[in-house]
C-alpha cells in the first residue's frame, strides 16, 4: 500500500509546542495521522492539540507512555541534531527531521550514529512523507495528494508539491511521496527510497525529482539500471543554475565530472528513466510508460 508511513504509524512530534510544531501537528492529525505524543523539555504533563495529545519532557518517557514508533522533529537547528539522537536513543526506528540549517559536521556524526543503530532518518531539511489516504508526516500539504499507485521521491520541497499536484490533477495518485531533504548530508538517499518503492507491491511506477549538486542522482541511476523494472520518470532542477556557488575547492576532486543537471539527466536517461523538461510533463511521461 505504501512505504514508511501508514495507518500504523504512531507519531511523536518533538517540538510540538513551538509555532511550527503545533501548526503542522494539527494538520497531520487532521489528515488522519495518529499523533500520539509530543515532547517539549519542561512542558511534560501538559497537553497539545486541544488536550488530545500528551506532552512529555523526554522522548524516552513519550515512547514508554504511548508506544510511539516514529518521530517528526521541528526543533530549532541548534538543538535539532541532539533531538534526532534522543529519538534514536529512545528506540524510535523512524525519524523525520524537518528542521533546516543544521551544521553539516553535526549531521555527519548523527548520520553515522543512526546508521549504526539501524534507525531510519529522513531529512533533515525535508518536507516529510505522505501516504495518501493513510497518514502524512511533515509539512507537505495534504490537499495535493490523491491515492494511487505511483511512488515519488524528491530532494525538494515546493517543487515536490508542484509535481504531486500535476499528477493528482492528471488523475495519477500516489502510494507514498517522500521528500528526502535538500541538505548535503541527509539520512536517507534516493537509492534507499527507490529500493523501498521497488519492493512495494502496490507501487507500479516511480517518479524522482532531483537537482544539481553531489552525485546522488547519478548513483540512483546506476541503481535503477541494475534493480528497478518499474516505469520511471524524473525531473532534474537547475539546468540554468550558476556553477560553483556552493562547492568547496578540494571537494571538487571527489565530485569531479558530476553535479550538473545534464550529467544527472544523461545518467538517468541511460538507465531507462523518462526525463521531463518541465514538472508538467511528468504525468504524460508516466501515461506514455503505460501507467494507468
Amino acid at each position: 500500500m505504501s512505504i514508511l508511513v501508514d495507518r500504523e504509524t504512531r507519531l511523536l512530534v518533538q517540538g510540538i509546542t513551538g509555532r511550527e510544531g503545533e501548526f503542522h501537528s494539527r494538520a497531520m492529525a487532521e489528515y488522519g495521522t495518529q499523533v500520539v505524543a509530543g515532547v517539549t523539555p519542561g512542558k511534560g504533563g501538559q497537553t497539545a492539540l486541544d488536550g488530545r495529545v500528551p506532552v512529555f519532557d523526554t522522548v524516552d518517557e513519550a515512547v514508554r507512555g504511548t508506544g510511539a514508533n516514529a518521530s517528526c522533529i521541528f526543533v530549532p537547528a541548534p538543538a535539532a541534531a541532539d533531538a534526532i539522537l534522543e529519538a534514536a536513543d529512545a528506540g524510535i526506528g523512524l525519524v523525520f527531521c524537518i528542521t533546516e540549517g543544521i551544521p553539516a559536521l553535526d549531521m555527519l556524526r548523527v548520520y553515522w550514529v543512526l546508521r549504526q543503530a539501524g534507525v531510519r532518518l529522513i531529512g533533515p531539511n525535508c518536507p516529510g512523507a505522505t501516504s495518501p489516504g493513510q497518514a502524512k508526516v511533515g509539512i507537505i500539504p495534504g490537499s495535493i495528494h490523491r491515492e494511487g499507485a505511483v511512488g515519488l521521491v524528491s530532494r525538494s520541497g515546493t517543487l515536490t508539491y508542484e509535481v504531486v499536484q500535476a499528477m493528482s490533477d492528471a488523475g495519477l495518485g500516489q502510494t507514498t511521496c517522500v521528500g528526502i531533504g535538500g541538505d548535503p548530508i541527509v539520512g536517507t538517499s534516493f537509492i534507499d527510497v527507490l529500493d523501498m518503492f521497488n519492493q512495494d507491491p502496490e507501487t507500479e511506477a516511480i517518479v524522482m525529482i532531483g537537482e544539481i549538486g553531489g552525485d546522488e542522482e547519478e548513483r540512483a541511476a546506476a541503481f535503477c539500471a541494475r534493480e528497478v523494472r518499474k516505469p520511471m520518470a524524473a525531473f532534474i532542477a537547475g539546468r540554468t543554475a550558476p556553477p560553483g556557488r556552493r562547492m568547496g575547492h578540494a571537494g571538487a576532486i571527489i565530485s569531479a565530472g558530476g553535479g550538473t543537471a545534464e550529467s544527472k539527466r544523461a545518467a538517468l536517461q541511460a538507465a531507462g528513466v523518462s526525463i521531463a523538461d518541465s514538472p508538467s510533463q511528468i504525468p504524460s511521461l508516466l501515461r506514455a510508460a503505460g501507467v494507468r
Partner: protein
Amino acid sequence: MKLQEYRSKEILASHGVPVSVGEVATTPAQARAAADRIGGPVVVKAQVLVGGRGKAGGVKLAADPAEAEARAAEILGMTIKDVTVRTVLIAPAAEIAHEYYLGIVLDRASRAVAVIASAEGGVEIEETARTNPDAVLRLPLHPLLGLLEHNVRRVAFFLGLSPDLRGQFGSILRGLAEAFASSDADLAEINPLVVTAGGELLALDAKIVLDDSGLYRHPDLEAMRDANEEEPSEIAAREAGINFIKLDGSIGCMVNGAGLAMATMDLVKLAGGEPANFLDIGGGAKADRVAAAFRIILDDPNVRAILVNIFGGITRGDEVARGIVEARATLQRQVPMVVRIVGTNAAEAAQILEAANLITAASLDEAAARAVAAARGEAPA
C-alpha cells in the same frame, strides 16, 4: 562562506600551524611600512576570494620596501574576475625547497571528512587529481573519532617526508584538523605547504571555507565576512533572510523553495528567456519580505519582467497575493509582473491579482512563456 587568505592564516596560526602571516595593507604606503617592519624580500598578494589571482598578476615579489610600495600600487585597485582588489597581504618571501598540498574537506558524497594530500603542491589540487591521480591521497577520517595518529602517519609517509619533518608535520595536520572542526568548515587547506631552505615546514597560503549553517555558533568568523567581494544585492538579500544569487538575464524570478526556484529558472530558459536571478523567498512569504525581494530584483537594471511563482501549500494563496499587491505599490520602478499562485485558495488569489492588473498563469510553463513575452514588451497571450 569563504575567508580571505590572511584570515585563514590567522585561524591556522591560532591552532599552532606555522604560517607566513605578514601584514595587510590597503594603501601603497602601508604596504611599504609593512615591508619595512618585516625586513628582507616580501610577497605582495591581492586579497580576493576568486581563484586565479596569480595568473591575473595579483601576486608579486618585492626585494625591498620601495618595491613593495610600487607593487602594491599596481595590485590595489586591479580588477580580478570582477572583484576590485582593496587589500593586499605583505608576507615575507620564503626560499622554497619543496611544495606540498594539504587539505581537509567535508566530502558530502561519502559523508566523511577527508584529508587530501599531495607532494605536488603549489598548483590547484583538482589539476593534480586530473593529470596525476596517484599523486593525490584522499584519506577519509572516522566520522566520530576524527583525525587519529595512524592517519597522521599515513599522510606523512605518503608525502615522503623526511624523518626530521614528521614531528612538525604531525602538529600541522592536527592543527589543521582542529581548525577545520572548531570553525565548522567545509574546507581548510594549505597550498602550498612548503619546506623552506632552512628545512622547516611553513604554510605559505591558506584557505578556509565555512559551512554557512555553522556560522550561528561562530559570530567571530561571521564578522570576517568580506562585503567588498559580494554583490550588494546579495548582501541585502541575506540581511532580509532571502536566498538570492544574481545572474545575467532579464527575467527576475521570485519563488518559494530552492528546487522550485531552480525549476522556474529552467522553464524561463526553455521558453526562450534568460533568468536574471535565483531567488528563494522561503516559507510564509510575508509582505515585507516580498517587498524586499522585489526591490532586490529591480535593483538590477537588466530586469525587464518579474515572474512570481508561489506554491501556496500551508500558506494561503490569497494572503500571498495581497502581499504581492501591497509590495508592488511601494516599488519605484515598475516592470511587467507575471504571478502564478497555486495550492490553497488559488482561485481567490487569482481574483486579487487580476483586480490589480497583474498577469496570471495557471501552469508554470504558461507563466514562464508569459514572462518571456512580457520582457520582450509583448502583450500577454
